[in-house]
């Protein structure tokens, strides 16, 4: 075979391989994929990553809806035979000016089996949370989002692998987790972002997260946990540009059994991808404190 023909064959084979590679499901790729290693010899997870799904709206499968806060439409009495306006539920007045920006896109759930095994009292609590989303969701107040919610919020995060600590720098609220890869003592207190101990299981970074408070939620749908929450995360590189993220949730105070969520995380490789400053405390002070002082800064008038 002539050299040129050989090159053509090699290139064709490479293209075919690449096409085949990109068309394999991630789970199949994961079985064979060998990630690059750091200089210390562990899998290299360094980079900026982001989930691309609608889990922050609702970790379970959900249809599209007009807004996060809804009210029932008034009965329509003027037209005989019609007792409702066109839509049964309408955006609540406080979120109505946002129009389509305030809508909720449909999405497949990330929960294994799409069912969260709440204890019976907790089913009612979840519904109550959803009904009071606007007052209760800690995301609205720029509180630290907790784990795993921080992972699938619509903001990037960066994994920084140090010598015996791995930092995860989240953009939202400037939250940071320190994952201890060597022996560390116990957390002196409960926390928002948990106390993280990590180890390697083959190519997978396994993080055991404990010492949570009961303040964080899983999503904007009111899914919640208690301070008995125990989170086990698994980050597995499945291609140069993807991590498979699997997380097991245990909380005997709220759920009847452990349950899992699973999703791919995508590498951000836009030019100059960085974790930017998102100091949202400043953005919510008017909401939280505007009415409390002598003067309301939004109006310049004296609060009654």
């Amino acid at each position, binding site marked *: 075979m002539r050299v040129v023909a050989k090159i053509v064959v090699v290139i064709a084979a490479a293209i075919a391989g690449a096409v085949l590679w990109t068309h394999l499901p991630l789970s199949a790729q994961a079985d064979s994929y060998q990630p690059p290693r750091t*200089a210390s010899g562990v899998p290299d997870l*360094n980079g900026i990553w982001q989930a691309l799904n609608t889990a922050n709206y609702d970790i379970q499968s959900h249809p599209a809806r007009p807004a996060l806060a809804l009210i029932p439409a008034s009965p329509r009495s003027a037209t005989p035979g019609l007792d409702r306006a066109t839509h049964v539920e309408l955006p609540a007045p406080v979120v109505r000016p946002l129009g389509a920006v305030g809508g909720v896109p449909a999405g497949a759930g990330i929960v294994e089996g799409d069912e969260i095994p709440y204890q019976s009292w907790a089913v009612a609590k979840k519904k109550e949370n959803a009904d009071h989303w606007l007052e209760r969701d800690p995301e609205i107040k720029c509180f630290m989002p907790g784990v795993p919610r921080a992972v699938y919020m619509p903001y990037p995060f960066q994994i920084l692998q*140090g010598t015996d600590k791995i930092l995860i720098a989240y953009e939202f609220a400037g939250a940071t987790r320190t994952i201890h890869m060597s022996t560390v*003592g116990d957390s*002196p207190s409960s*926390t928002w972002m948990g106390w993280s101990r990590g180890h390697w299981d083959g190519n997978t970074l396994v993080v055991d997260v404990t010492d949570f408070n009961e303040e964080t939620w899983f999503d904007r749908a009111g899914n919640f946990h208690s301070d008995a929450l125990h989170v086990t995360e698994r980050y597995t590189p499945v291609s140069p540009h993807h991590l498979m993220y699997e997380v097991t949730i245990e909380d005997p105070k709220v759920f009847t059994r452990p349950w899992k969520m699973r999703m791919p995380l995508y590498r951000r490789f836009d030019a100059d991808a960085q974790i930017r400053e998102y100091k949202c405390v400043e953005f919510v002070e*008017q909401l939280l404190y505007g009415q409390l*002082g002598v003067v309301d800064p939004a109006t310049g008038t004296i*609060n009654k």
Partner: protein
Amino acid sequence: MPYRSLILVGVVAIAGAIAVPACYAPPSPTASSPTTGRTAWGDPDLQGVWRYEGAIPLERPSQLEGRDTLTAEEVAARERVEKEQEAKRLEGVEGAAVGRRSIAESPIRGNEYNSFWQDHGRPRQVSNRTSLIVDPPDGQLPFTPNAKKAEARAAARYGVGPFESYLDPDTGERCLTDGVTGMMWQGPNGGHNRIVQSPGYVTILHEEYRDRRVIPVDGRPHGSIRQWFGDAVGRWEGETLVVDTTNFVDRTNYEWANIWTRPSESLHLVERFKRVDPAAIEYTVTVDDPTTFTRAWTAMIPITKLPDDTQIYEYACHEGNYAMPNLLRGGRTDAARTSSR
């Protein structure tokens, strides 16, 4: 502000402040690089938890005008005072100064309710230097006249008010930040900072306000997005990390904030982290901001490495900011009293 009033962050930050290494497991035997060595990928290794533990004031006190250094006798006297104060603090006889008051001015000798906020755990290191500022040679901040007025006004209001809205307390009380300029050395917790390195990045995690800087050290130029913490890029000059930060966002409208927390767009910082010893970094920061200063100034700050098992704990300031509603309620009560007179 260097001192914050009682905002309930909880045991976490306090535990960090008190730094109780004895409670924790010994450092891992798997740590792969010696303290003064290099990372596995060949960069100088600055990783660990660091803070400023010195007793040197930023500006040279007026009684030491014209003197760079103290005599051996003066140093010995200061060491005695530090030890005495430390002993008194440990006995609970005397707390640390709170706010901008010195212990001498405090009617209850520093035992204010929120003096627990201060780090009493370790005696401060005495040095023969008379100011952290090494340039200009007089050891003074070269304020412009307007900036000096603004600073004096902010200082006079600190802890005094009036507090008419959430915009009136300083940025620390609002749980926003104490700013990047003093991050390596200010703060009641002594500025605990964890440095973590990964290929192409140096990350500094500061305990207070959970402030964080992810500094690219890969030769990229400055970006164009303005941020409160600016846009930092780093480079290695031999063993020294040099960090150049520009593109600060304008926060001069926060008139009650101090110079550390109120950057203007013209602020430019150049920081140098030079490892001089396994347990010491000589940190210098050059601050250039024609909006605030008549010339660039430089401070040289000795930073100490804390034991390997020292942790940076979660600082949930905003999440537990009960002080803000209470402060504003107090402000309304004051206003109501005044108007009823």
